[in-house]
């Protein structure tokens, strides 16, 4: 009883604190006025000349701020590594469903989803989408398989890790090549092509390819580890 009351009181006080803080925050944020110009807008201006990529977000992600993306990919790698290290792996699937309809559906859908993912990746510089989105879509195909086949499905962990590592290494090498052949990281060492075509953007496309492959492998691994975690 007493404990409950203390708990309620502490919740009340915490709530009060948070509300006060939010109100104060909002009070200050009212003063927020949009800037005259931003570097994003500048980048938008020079995007056409420097990248020939129709999707400005993509050029920002992969080119102008390619280093961020590299870091992000490394974070993902680090996280997946941590999950793989600490989750004790088992062959038992948490979702042990054996629905034939689901399995056949999965069989049909799997290549389609993968294909869709590849499309998203390769057209990342033309339309919304890109390596991350496509990678996750590809991973979702694998998740579908996990759900459908239960214990009987076990993708080759070695292959997944290898593709993850190598695509990551490819990404870094691309950066290093830029440094060696060009004058900076992710320098445009390939021809830019014409804007709006599939083979435009030079290195950007390669970056997204590697990212897509990597994200696909990582997300698959991630879901595998959580789905097949031992006796939770």
């Amino acid at each position, binding site marked *: 009883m007493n404990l409950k009351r203390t708990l309620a009181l502490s919740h009340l006080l915490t709530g009060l604190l948070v509300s006060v*803080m939010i109100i*104060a925050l909002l009070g*200050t944020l009212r003063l927020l006025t949009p800037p005259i110009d931003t570097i994003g807008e500048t980048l938008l201006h020079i995007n056409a000349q420097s990248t020939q990529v129709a999707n400005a977000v993509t050029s920002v992600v992969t080119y102008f701020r390619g280093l961020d993306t590299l870091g992000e990919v490394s974070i993902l790698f680090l996280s997946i590594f941590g999950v793989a290290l600490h989750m004790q792996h088992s062959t038992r699937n948490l979702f042990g469903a054996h629905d034939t309809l689901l399995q056949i559906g999965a069989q049909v859908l799997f290549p389609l989803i993968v294909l869709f993912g590849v499309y998203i990746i390769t057209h990342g510089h033309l339309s919304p989408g890109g390596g991350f989105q496509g990678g996750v879509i590809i991973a979702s195909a694998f998740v579908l398989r996990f759900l459908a086949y239960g214990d009987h499905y076990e993708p080759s962990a070695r292959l997944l890790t290898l593709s993850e590592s190598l695509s990551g290494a490819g990404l870094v090498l691309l950066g290093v090549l830029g440094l060696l052949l060009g004058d900076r990281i992710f320098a445009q060492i390939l021809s830019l092509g014409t804007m709006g075509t599939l083979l435009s953007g030079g290195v950007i496309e390669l970056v997204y390819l590697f990212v897509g492959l990597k994200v696909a492998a990582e997300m698959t691994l991630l879901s595998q580890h959580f789905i097949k975690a031992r006796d939770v």
Partner: protein
Amino acid sequence: MFHFEATLLAHLFFGLSLLVILPLLRRRDLVLHLLLLLSLGILFYASSLATLFIGWEMMGWSSYFILASSARVATLQRYILFNLGGAFALLGAIALLYGFMGSLEYRDIDASLLPPWAMNAIALLLFVAVFVKSGIIGLHDWVVDSYSEATPLFSAILSAILSKAGIYLFIVMFMVLLKEGATEPLLFEIMAWLGVITSIVATFKAISQDEMRRLLAYSSIAQIGYIITILALMQGFALEAALYHTLIHTLIKLLLFMNIASIIAITQKERFSELGGMIYHAPVLFLLLVIGIIALAGMPLLGGFNSKFLIYTALLEEKRALLLGAVMFSSASAFLYCYKLVYGIYLGQRPQEASLHVSPKSYYLPQLLSAALLVLLALLPSLPVGYLSVIGVELGFAPLDDSNLFILQSAFGSFHGGALMGAFGVAFVALLGLLQLAHSKAKKVKDPLDISYCGEVPRSETNLHFGYGMGYELHRISFIAPLLRHHSRVLWDRLSLIASDFSALLSSLYSLSAQHVTLLALLLFTLLLLGGQ
């Protein structure tokens, strides 16, 4: 970082420090002792405050590690904390000086540029450093424990040499570097009285000790108290008196501690209550100790008187009657512990026949050397005066007269060491001869228990050595008892308790759950947001 300069003062102090190699007789902690010697060299020969501080700190920690082999943890804590406290005060003073001078080199320091408040702050900080090292009462806790728990040989080093570092620091700081500074005279007045109060209190504490080395530790504190008092006069003759006393005290404490080291080696006992009657087992040691205590008590016929004489006349010359009275009072009280020392160990009855070991022969050498020097100085009291007076001149004071080595000169009179020694010698020999020639024969009693004992016959189990408790009467004397009853340790213990409570409070903050940590962070954010603008 290291800048050195060879001065006579440095030579004097470093010459004394060479005794540090003494414990190598026992071949323990060779590296640490050499480090200690090195640190003393750095300290004394430094010509930059940074170098001086390096020497000071190295001395602190190397001695700490030597001490650590035998002392208790609490003692070690006390030792290092007090020493570092002093050292940090010194560091504070150095930093303050740097703030005004922009340099730490001795030659760049011009104290006349210091504003009075800064000079006084520096002086106060330096006082803390000097007082801690010298064990001024209230800051003396570490001295006694560490002296009594060090290895017997290292106690000798601690008392004979390391305790002098504070003296050196004072001389270098106040008589060389900050001589021109506008230090408030009241500070020196306070220092002088602190010195003499220390020597009085320490003397009483020494009398009431039961452990030999604790007694000597308090005695060291008391002796250094005189030096502090006399240095506070800031006069040339006072400086020379202080240096003379430093010299003498080093010799005496070396002799006494080595003597006690021998006794500990022989009996494995540390307390007066467990000792006694050693005179006939170790007559040479007894004689050496008697020489030591006569010198310690400052009686004529041994070197101890010379420095006392200089101290007294220096105080007389400054017309500091009350200060002198207090010093003499303390000095007279010292007879009591001097006698306790010799009685407790060598005289009286041996309590029980325990097995006796042999003292290492190497322990005799430093004792004999000190004793010989003390006798020599009694005969030629002006022997070191020439050297000391050169130091005085180096520091800008007038030279002393040392034309006749037999005569110790002062503004308030002089005495002839040779005449004193000669007269005593003649009288002693004549009276001894008279006694020998007397008709009656002295018969040695067979049994040491054959004594007048209120008509009773004491047996071997009767405790006849209760004289070791001498000085207990002091507890009944109303003005001394509080001094003996109260111990500054209580104060420090309470302080450490407060620190410990505070620490518990704070460390509980560091055991909060992650949620509470974020809550506090949010609270900080909110408060700053609301009130920070």
